[in-house]
């Protein structure tokens, strides 16, 4: 397998990712923001495909694009009393922007200096079948724990959002 991936595809997907994030942060409508988040997530799924991680791309689409977006939209709708509440004044947040910019800048500097270890590239990328095999053998215990976490989270979420208790 090659040491790099297709630059054009990367550029387009990266643009879509960052553009979606920027739009999400700059739009004044919360509902629009949720849809821009969805767009970012889908573009990220495309990046996973580019990185030969088909399974993850699938999971990304299912979990983020499907479940999380729907959840977010539901919450937005449940917490809006009027349609106009969805539109909020833009909050520039200069301090946050400065901090984030500093952080990002420092990261970029660090990345530009980083030395990666030499790559061990096999002939062909591993398939989804390989992925499944390893997940359920070597990573079986963590997988089970993760399931448990999800279950607890589910129960907790139901508990917290359960309306009639109080």
């Amino acid at each position, binding site marked *: 397998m090659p040491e790099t991936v297709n630059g054009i595809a990367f550029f387009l997907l990266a643009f879509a990712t960052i553009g979606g994030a920027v739009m999400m942060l700059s739009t004044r409508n919360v509902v629009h923001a949720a849809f821009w988040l969805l767009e970012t997530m889908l573009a990220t799924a495309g990046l996973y495909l580019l990185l030969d991680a088909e399974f993850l791309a699938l999971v990304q689409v299912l979990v983020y694009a499907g479940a999380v977006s729907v959840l977010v939209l539901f919450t937005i709708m449940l917490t809006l009393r009027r349609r106009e509440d969805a539109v909020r004044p833009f909050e520039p947040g*200069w*301090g*946050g922007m400065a*901090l984030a910019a*500093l*952080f990002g800048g*420092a*990261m970029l500097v*660090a990345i530009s*200096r980083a030395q990666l270890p030499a790559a061990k590239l096999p002939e062909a990328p591993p398939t989804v079948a390989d992925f499944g095999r390893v997940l359920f053998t070597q990573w079986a215990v963590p997988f089970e724990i993760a399931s448990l976490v999800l279950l607890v989270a589910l129960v907790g979420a139901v508990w917290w959002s359960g309306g009639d208790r109080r």
Partner: protein
Amino acid sequence: MGYVALIPLLPALSFAVLAPLPRAWRNWLVPVSVAAVVASLGLSVAAFAATWPGGHEAHAQTAFEAVFAHIGGAELAFRLVVDPVSALMALVVTLVGTAVQVYSVGYMHREERIGWYFAALSLFTAAMLTLVLADNFLQLYMAWEVMGLCSYLLIGFWHQQPGPRAASMKAFLTTRVGDVGFALGLLVMYANVGSFDFAAVLHEHAWQPAAATAVALLLLFGAMGKSAQLPLHVWLPDAMAGPTPASALIHAATMVAAGVYLVGRAMPIFEASGVALTVTLIVGALTALVGGLLAAVQHDVKKVLAYSTISQLGYMFVALGAGGFVAGMYHLVTHAFFKSLLFLGAGVIIHAAHTQDMREMGGLAKHMPVTTAAFGAGALALAGVPPMAGFFSKDEILTVLVHEHQYAALAIALAAAFVTAFYVARLFFRVFTGPPQTEHLKEAHVEMLAPMVVLAAITAVVGFAGPALGEFLGHEIPWPEPGVAALSVGVAAAGLAAGWWVYGRRTVVLNTRPLKERFGVLYTALSLKLYFDLTYDNFVVKPYARLAAWLARFDLGVIDGVVNGAGRLWQALSAAGSWFDTRAVDGAVNGAAAAVVASGERVRAIQVGRVQAYQALMFGAIVLVMLLLVVKGV
């Protein structure tokens, strides 16, 4: 000649007496101000008479000297010095000043604040006299600025109305733009010569062309502001919001001519430069023409006269730019007389017609014969018709241009002369002929008419004294020259005839629409004052206000933000070792302890209870560590 010191001192004293008093006393003491200026006039006549015999050969005589500062090896002195030019100027200033003050007694007698008006007039007179009697540029500059103050006070005399208030500020600021140039000129002058004295700067110092050009252009810039030359002329028409007699004194006869006086005084520097003379010529020529054109489209009587003043001052600059010092000064003198006459006449007209708009006037001649005659004399002088004074002085300027072969300037000057005659005719015929539009027209009181009659007499006579005056000032060129005189009279007659053709033949109602339509674009541009005001407003004033507001936000947001950010960071650091007990030391008088208390209080503020604040703190710390790593190159 010690009495010369009293010439500016008397008006200054009358200001010092009037200004601090309560209003009622001030109003009651108005005669003091008039008496002071009359006394100054008497002394000026004496000084002039004493200087006359020697003519321009006479040595400058120091009448008063007081060193007010010793600085860096130089002595800065306040001196009152009489030489032919300053004696003549003092005479003109006190003469016009007296006329205006006498006239004002009648014109302003209904004003509540008449005392303050006279106080400001007195201060102005004192400053102008100090200026013309100065023998160094610093004193000249200081008096110059004080005049600016008086101009500001008098333009804004009716400050309860927004118009005069805005006009006064505009006048002060616009002239101060020029004054910055003047001040810089003084700096360059001092750096080169080490003195401000006329003797040292003008005669003893050997000027390098570059330095001379710098100084001359900067002084010229100052003069352009004060004398309302293009492109700094915008304040003068607005300044007409002030009382009319004040306009006559300040914005027609004396203060605005101070720029001409300055350039005239600094002539040796201009001559050493050469370039500066050309620039003066160009500025003057453009101003003469543009001012005349603008005057021709105004409807407000005073604004016609204001633009006319701008144009005539341009004429004086043309003379100076061509090297005709005497011609310029002579035109200054005659202009002072006939223009103040015209302004005083305008005041009478406005009182009688209860409007400043020419379109609502007409037929004043029948009811106000004296005013008409006096105003007519002034108008003819302005148009340059012999034997009025204006003809002689304008003729000398044209002669200088011919003599120096400045034919382009000559052409522009003749064009300006034509336009001048045209708008003079327009003004005269609109106001004094045709059907009356106002009832109960009455001639003015004697205290207003007398000064006008005197000025009109001077205007009619002083032209014949021209050659003698020129000799007195030391003129360079013999004049009048018949050919030039014929040309000038011809142009003036043509202009007057054109004006009569359009405005004088009317029987019932005047219709100028065809004329306006024929000159559509030009007329629009002229009626918008050639876009000068719009340009300044949109490209200087408003951007500056926006910039200032933006800087204020920048100061609060960025510079102060950095400070406060540093403060918060410091608090975060001290929070790490939060060992203060904030309450234990509360109420301690000790300064350091109190600072700790207060900072403890402030430290508590970071426990805001908001998730994002904690998050910011966390990432702030991470960023710090990262920056440290990046800087250390890990």
